[in-house]
């Protein structure tokens, strides 16, 4: 049990990678504050996590022996972020780990100059500024204790470009920049900040993930064809499994990585190494 007694906040925890990380952390003894927007957004052309899915994540975690608290939080609202952290403090007394996992993949699928002002702002507000807002709420607690690990879930799109995903790529690159700068800010206080860059992750039905499906839809190609393209382009010729990402997140969360900060950990089967 590598996270016994640690209090962990996971955003975007209703399904997908957020759920995968939460479950893995619960199995390792962590207690969890599970956050998700738990409603749809009109400008996002696919359904977001629901409150039912969030509660389901919590139930799975409690079954694994964790204490959980859930809250619907929109990371675009700093007040909601701060209240959520207070909930964690009330219940768990502290916060040891923050996983900034909440993010959207579309509106995308357009050449850069076709992206509207509103679409651009939304993407950066959720994928980049949202992580900063959560960090702003959590970091003082960690700085106080001279301990803590913040994991920003970026993407291979944080290190290379993708056609027709300019706002997403910009946001995920920005998240790596934020990671590096914040890592330097907090290093003297022994709070670590790292970025995790998943490649194309298989949509696991149990986790109810749909990232790959939504990206395929943005590109107007069938999911299976999209998967095949990735499998072909990836040096290890396989899609990434959610457990691969959860395992990397666990390492960054636990003391095994105590000298690791400001790093960018790619889990992409070698995709960005070419």
């Amino acid at each position, binding site marked *: 049990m590598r996270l*016994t*007694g640690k209090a962990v906040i996971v955003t975007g925890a209703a399904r997908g990678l957020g759920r995968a990380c939460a479950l893995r952390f619960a199995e390792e003894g962590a*207690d969890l504050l599970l956050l998700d927007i738990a409603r749809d957004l009109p400008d996002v052309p696919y359904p977001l996590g629901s409150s039912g899915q969030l509660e389901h994540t919590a*139930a799975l975690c*409690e*079954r*694994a*022996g964790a*204490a*959980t*608290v859930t809250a619907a939080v929109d990371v675009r609202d700093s007040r909601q972020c701060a209240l959520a952290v*207070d909930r964690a*403090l*009330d*219940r*768990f*007394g*502290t916060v040891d780990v923050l996983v900034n996992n909440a993010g959207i993949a579309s509106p995308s699928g357009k050449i850069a100059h076709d992206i509207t002002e509103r679409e651009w702002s939304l993407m950066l507000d959720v994928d980049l500024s949202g992580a900063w807002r959560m960090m702003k709420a959590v970091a003082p*607690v960690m700085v*106080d*204790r*001279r301990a803590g690990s913040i994991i920003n879930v970026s993407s291979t799109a944080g290190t290379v470009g993708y056609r027709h995903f300019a706002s997403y790529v910009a946001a995920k690159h920005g998240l790596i920049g934020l990671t590096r700068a914040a890592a330097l800010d907090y290093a003297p206080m022994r709070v670590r900040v790292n970025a995790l860059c998943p490649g194309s992750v298989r949509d696991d039905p149990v986790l109810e993930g749909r990232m790959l499906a939504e990206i395929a839809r943005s590109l107007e190609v069938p999911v299976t064809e999209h998967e095949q393209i990735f499998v072909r382009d990836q040096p290890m010729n396989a899609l990434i499994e959610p457990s691969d990402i959860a395992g990397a997140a666990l390492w960054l969360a636990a003391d095994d990585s105590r000298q690791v900060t400001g790093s960018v950990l790619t889990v992409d089967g070698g995709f960005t190494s070419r």
Partner: protein
Amino acid sequence: MTTSTTDAPAAGCHSLVLRLPDGADPQHLLSGATPDPVRIGQTSVPAGADEPTAEARRHAESSRPIHRDGPPLRAVVLRYTDGTADLVLVAVRAAVPPAALRRIARRALGRAAEEGGVLPGVLPRPTVGGGPVPAQRSGPEWGLGEPELRGVVGSVRIDLGGLGEHAERLFLPAIALALSRYAGGDRAELGVLDLRDGTGTGEVVRVHVVEEHPDCSGAEFLRRFDREPVTPGAPVTPLPPAAAQEPPAVGVVLSPAFEEGGYTAALAPVFPLTVQLDEGASHATCRFDRGSVDASVAHRFCAHVAHLASQLAHGPGARPLAELELVPPAEREEILRTGGADGAGDRAPVRGRIDRAFERVAAAQPDAVALLADGDRLTYRQLNDRADAVAAGLSALDVAPGSLVGVCLERDAELVVTLLGVLKAGCAYVPMDPRYPAQRLRFTTQNAEVPVVVTSAAEFPQVPEVRLLSPAALAELGADRASTGAHRSDQGDDEGDGPAYVIYTSGSTGTPKGVVVPHRNVLALLRATAEDFAIGPDDTWTLFHSGAFDFSVWEIWGCLLTGGRLVVVPYWTTRDTEEFYDLLAEQGVTVLNQTPSAFAQLVRTDQRVRRGLALRLVVFGGEPLDVRMLAPWFARHPASDCRVVNMFGITETTVHVTAQTVTPRDVVAGSRSVGRPLPGWSLSVRDERGRVLPPGVPGEIYVGGAGVADRYLGLPELTAQRFVLDGATGERVYRSGDKGRLRPDGRLDHLGRLDNQVKVRGHRIELDEIRTVLLGAPRVTAAAVVVNRDDPDDPASSRIDAYVVLDAAADGATDPAEVLAHAKAKLPDYMMPTTITAVAGIPLTINGKPDVSGLPDPRNSSAATPAEAQERPETHESPAAGGITDDILSIWSKFLNTPVGPQDNFFTLGGNSLLVVRVLAEMRERKLPRVAPKQLYEHSTAAQFVEYVRRLAEATSVPQ
């Protein structure tokens, strides 16, 4: 053993776990119970209430501290699969004291519906937020905690069953008593957090225990504890809260009983070592931060408290407190075994004489080289023959076997020949250094009552009825008899019980004292080390140290009794690191013995010169080793090529007591360990009354076993004080006066001297001895002597500063320089004060001891007289203008840390052998001519030295 964190908030929180009645709705029951609504967390636990998973969850929830910015109370309901549920309440103790927590619990259980309204006792939360993280509390001196484990909590259960109903009354006094014994004095500090009355939040008070009034019985001690607070001077004195700057390292939490459910008074140890006693419970719990306290030390502490409590409970009440045992007999045996006390019994005692052992080696390898000294080269046979001549000479002089014979010779072949010859004659040698002042030589000669002194020194003082003979004269006297073997003493002593040598060490009475060491001790030392160090005929040793320093005993006999080759290092080479380094390389020396100060210089030379060395064993002795200086050494000489051994020893226990092989890992860790006792030696750490102390607790080092010397020469009273029969083991042990502590694994940490004996550059100096000499000077009415370091990390910067009070009423000018001249006639150079400062009075502490901190800085005081200022002519002429002068004056100033004028003497301004080496190294770096250390000794004023260097520069700059 549990693991959690010991941050301050956790120590300030308490918790209560309640089983909820069926159908209870805590949200409803608690509504309105507290000023702020309590939000109740709900967690479903995937197990029945009695399963381990549920227990783990309860434990997790009830040990989770409250965040300082949140509400002061947290309520969590744990629902189990069997339909039952627990309510876990966690609260900040200062805001929700035990009584308030109890009321909330009763309310939640539905038992206190009648007590409507907001619960009293929930206080506004003290403001603790915003400030810096509280400073880490330091643990007890005896804790031996592992800093890496800081924050990890260990726990020990202490059974109180045997104490009956008096458990609580006995427990606090027992802890206080144990602590005072651990502290090695008559006082202890103990924190007490009393939560029993339920309404108060509990304050930390300091209890000051004055233990062991000679007439204080156990019963009286308990009575006085009950009457707390009592008058000053009595056993228990609570200190005013203002004095409590930092919480004590050890404390007790007295916790109320909760019938409502499982209560935890503090979620983390309140003190680095906390004993929690629950009202009416049959056991206490000791919790400790493993960063401050080692688990085995904590276990022992708890056992000692229980043992004392049991004696207070069951023993006769009239028994004096001082008779109560801290350590039970079985544990005492075990501790003594840890210190090697049983090792001696395993082996037959070593018997025999040094000279006979040498003769056996000489017979086995007569043509092997035994000695190399300044061109002389002696085989074992030659050495044996020449020593026989010396023995015969002594015999011809009618020096009876068993006599003491003075030997005052330079380090050369004659020294070794003479020492061996003295032993062969059945006598014991009394080594004296030719560089000692005449008064000290005379004192030693008279004190030891030697009939003969073998010396080549023309200036050796004449003492009535003492014959002075050169080694040559002695050998000549014996030349005829040597071959006949007529000199041989047939008076037995094959056992080696008779003295082999008498070495004088610094004494606190103001006079040196002679330590009488029998032959068999030296043989035992070799048996204890030869195998482990693998020393033998292939080894080459150096004789580096003065015969008057017992390190030389190890060098000479360690080499010659194992068939090795002994390279005698001339005095001036011992002062010249580079020359000595070259000697090591050229002679292929394999075994080197050094003081750490001297070796530090060698390491620097080694880094610069980088010649191939054959060294395979380096032994440190003479002074504490700071292992960090070895880092550059290990970088060039892996431990697998050259073993480095740190040895702690005392003249009175035959050179060495312990050995610790130092590894690069120890260097990184900054280890202070001097290791385990040698086989046949034993050690223990005792308190002032000679009682064995447990591992971790500092006290006086006692040494027993094969190395214990015979006695102090002519000092039966002092001998009886220091060489005592140990009641615990029945063996003779030596009370070293050194402070140390045993580690649980049997290794010793050496912590310096208990009295004011100090080491300055490897020399053991009793400051009182210097003080006594100063007090003997005309017009001195009081004196104090302190050792200061300009650079705390640099032993070479140590200097002895003396302060004297001069009688103004006496005739003549009051001049510290006269005092200095007086001291110079009596003290060896290494004991000479660097400065003598006249002061109006010596400030004293309350205890009547000189208050060192109240003395002026000798460097800044206007009264300070740099030694020999008297001899300085009133001239300010510069001996030579220009480069060399400026360079040399600036180098001297730099290392002496004081402005230097042309007439200043290097040594009276604080120069010493280590600084000589540094000055010469700096000169080399500034491209000044290379100068041998000897020259700085011979040209010791700046003007003389500059003149010498200039002549040297002119000589070397002649065109070729």
